[in-house]
């Protein structure tokens, strides 16, 4: 696996974490915590 792909995989994970944190914070800020319990099981 080349250096480029390692960076790509790392960046994918880093951006996933970033967007999850941002999404959760914005929803919390609106008084709407992530609604796992409301989602279809």
């Amino acid at each position, binding site marked *: 696996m080349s250096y480029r792909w390692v960076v790509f995989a790392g960046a994918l994970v880093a*951006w996933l974490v970033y967007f999850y944190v941002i999404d959760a914070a914005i929803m919390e800020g609106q008084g709407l915590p992530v609604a796992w319990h409301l989602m279809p099981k």
Partner: protein
Amino acid sequence: MIVHRHSVFWTLALALLAGLLVGLVPDLIAAAEPEALVQPTRADYPSIAGLSSRTVVWSLAQMHLFLAAFVLAVPLFVLCIELAGVLTRETRYDDMAHEFMKISMAAYSFTALAGGGLTIALFLLYPNLMNFMMRVFQGQTLIYAALFGLESVCLYIYFYSWNALRHGNRKWFHMSIGVMLNMVGLGLLFIANAWTTFMMSPAGVDPSGAITGTVWDATHNPLWNPLNLHRFLANIAYGGAIVGAYAAYRFLSARTAAERAHYDWMGYTSNIIAVVGFLPLPFAGYWLMAEIYSYSQQMGITAMGGILAWLFIIQAVLIGTILLAANYYLWCGLGRTERGAHYAPYVKYIAVVLVGGFLVWVTPHTIILTPQEIQTMGGTSHKFLGPLGIMPAKNIAVNLMLVFTFLSFQMFYRSSRTPTVSWAKAGNAAIVALYIVGCLNIVAAGIYGYITPTVYKVGASVPQVATTLSIIVFTAIIDGFMLRGARKTEINWGRMPARSQYALFVLPVAFTWLMALMGYIRSSLRTNWHVYTIMKDASPEAYIPTIGEAGNMITLVTLSFMALIVFIFWLSQLGATKQQMPEAGTTVEEAAP
């Protein structure tokens, strides 16, 4: 000496303005005597020569808005371009900024003319409403008039001192006049917005119409700031689109390669200005609509759930047209560089996203159907297309369209630059990962909106906006560092097909029509009220115009404005034309260029 004399002049002008403000401050902070409003009756509306009062005011207001949006926006980006010229030490920026100003100068007197006509029409045809508005806003109207005068002074000095204050410290002084011009322009915009939004969401008055608050209370009404932001961004996009059409007109009529190159570059810059103003605009519109719902749910439902709801489908068509035209122009621009061919294969994928998003956006939730059609379809909304008619789908579509428009711009920007930094491959990998994860997040937040209650559906649109902005900001930052010291490829300005220029003509036409359409919607939200829930409209035209009637009116005003713009372009070109001295033995006509 010039700087010194100007300093004295500006000190006096500022002192005069400060004196005026101090003189009017009591009016701004003191509440008028509470006195219940006397509602107007049919007899209070004069009928002049059988003309439709609403049509007269509507057309003048719309024309004034088009022109004002243009002349207020141009100095904003002109100042930025002027600064770019100072920072890069390239005179071409300064020349282009000056040329942009030349176009707007011709439009300025028409703006004042339409504004004056509107004021006279309002006082003549709606005297009771204007009487009430004057009582609410008191001295602020005089501040507006003073700012209008100051705007003219700043504008003329800014324009006519361009060559006199071109280099060194004088240039900074010239730009400071530009700053003042823009401050005054924004002041005018914000005051006019206060009057408009007061009529929609009145504040500082009680339900009987008695004035209980200050002028500031009336100004700082619930919809004021959302409209301020929305119009500020829209003006920049609109101004960029109009000067882009001017550049296209000059490009197509250019006689030399140098002229074509200059106007191609000018058209490109204008398109970028329009796109930069346009990208955050849907978010500002979303905020405005959310505040309308928050102020009055009834008003929100009138906008998006009643007769006006269908117009948002037309809005989607127009915005889709704008995005397709802006992207098409950028794609054509890839032909300006040799490296552009490297990015050309990706264009088709962007086109798929844009067209797909456009189709989702124009899909209505419910349509008018015959009983037979309902039976065939198995309900009032289609099994597969119905879900595309609600907001989560639209939000996914619009955000992806904006992200991919930015990608088109990024491709063009990179087509003339090859990164030389050692970490270029890693940087590219991080950017690709950002686009992939960001787009997935936009889609996931939309799906989340489908499977959770309505309140979450609305709330989930905010992370989508944040994602789009994150993609744009982080990509720009990474690119900014990565392209430092990049190897530049020559951009062959002027190497553009003629058809690309027609995309630049599409932009202002679609923008103008869109502004008129949304103005009709915004004004109609007041239904049969002059000032919502406070002052009733008792005129014979106290109803929402039908969509057909409004469509005709909007088209007529748009065509009139376009005719005026063509005249303004012609004037600008005429001003740059110089007749050659006829040689001995030739007639004047033979010597003409």
